[in-house]
């Protein structure tokens, strides 16, 4: 039998090896000094760790709380994000209704702002004030067009002489 891997030694120490294989391993351990030493070292480390970890056990078991099955007080140490943010549980229908109201309010505001400048312009021009224009240098849309030179009358310019014949 080959020398035992750390995984096999761990499984051996934890009693997780089937009986037939276990007997083979036991035989190997009687024959192989190196594996025997490794098994002893691993066993000692395991015992030490278990002993140390047991120090973390509670000194006394507290009285069990009355089980609260409503879920209102559960997970107080780490409440969900929304509960931490808003202070209490957010119900989905309420959240959806709030979103709908915000959406409609946004649309209405947009419509009012959109219609407001023309109304202002009419009323202000009637009262003799200059209308308000909002200008932008942004090209919104450009349509291609065909150049029509049928009614073109050439200008007598020293640098540029175009006749109707040439333009066709």
């Amino acid at each position, binding site marked *: 039998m080959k020398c035992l891997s750390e995984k096999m030694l761990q499984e051996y120490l934890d009693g997780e090896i089937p009986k037939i294989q276990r007997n083979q391993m036991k035989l190997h351990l009687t024959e192989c000094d190196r594996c025997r030493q490794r098994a002893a070292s691993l066993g000692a480390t395991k015992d030490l760790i278990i002993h140390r970890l047991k120090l973390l*056990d509670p000194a006394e078991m507290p009285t069990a709380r009355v089980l609260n099955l409503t879920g209102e007080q559960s997970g107080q140490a780490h409440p969900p994000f929304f509960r931490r943010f808003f202070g209490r549980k957010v119900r989905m229908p309420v959240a959806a209704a709030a979103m709908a109201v915000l959406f409609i309010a946004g649309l209405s505001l947009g419509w009012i702002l959109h219609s407001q400048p023309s109304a202002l312009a009419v009323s202000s021009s009637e009262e003799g004030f200059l209308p308000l224009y909002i200008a932008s240098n942004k090209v919104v849309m450009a349509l291609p067009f065909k150049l029509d030179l049928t009614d073109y009358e050439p200008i007598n310019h020293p640098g540029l002489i175009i006749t109707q014949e040439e333009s066709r």
Partner: protein
Amino acid sequence: MEEGKRPDSEGADLVEVLYKEYFPTIYRLGFRLLGNSEQALDLTQEVFLKLYRRLNGGPPVTEIKGWLYRTAANLSYDWLRRKCRFQKISASRLERTEKDVEQELIDAEAIQAVREALEQLPPRDRILLVLYLDELSYDEISNATGFRKSSVGTFISRAINRLAKELEKGEKP
């Protein structure tokens, strides 16, 4: 617990019975991992609340003990990850109570040393070690953590070695 039982109106009673039976197991697991009685109690409450919801509408639970361990391990994992993110060095904040007896002082220091070493390990290793400490079989650990049974031995061996190294580091002056 009968296999695959799904209570309806008696769900709360059944969960109460299971709560009384498994409270120490889950509380101890939470206390070892989180190092705080209040959080361990919260964890226990959350686990049994999940059990109640599961029994009243979810698929049937076939193995209660394994399910409780699995749920507690998953919840602890989430909590530990958050704790790692927000409180990287929390061991130093452990409350130190005044002890009159010298032996108790030594014990408190030893406990703190173990907790500090344990907190240096990734949450996965901590959970594995705590389950291992409860003398769970590889099958049960695999069921609780979702690791393949064939990998459990390797992971435990690594976790033990890592903790041993951390303890050694802590002991060096």
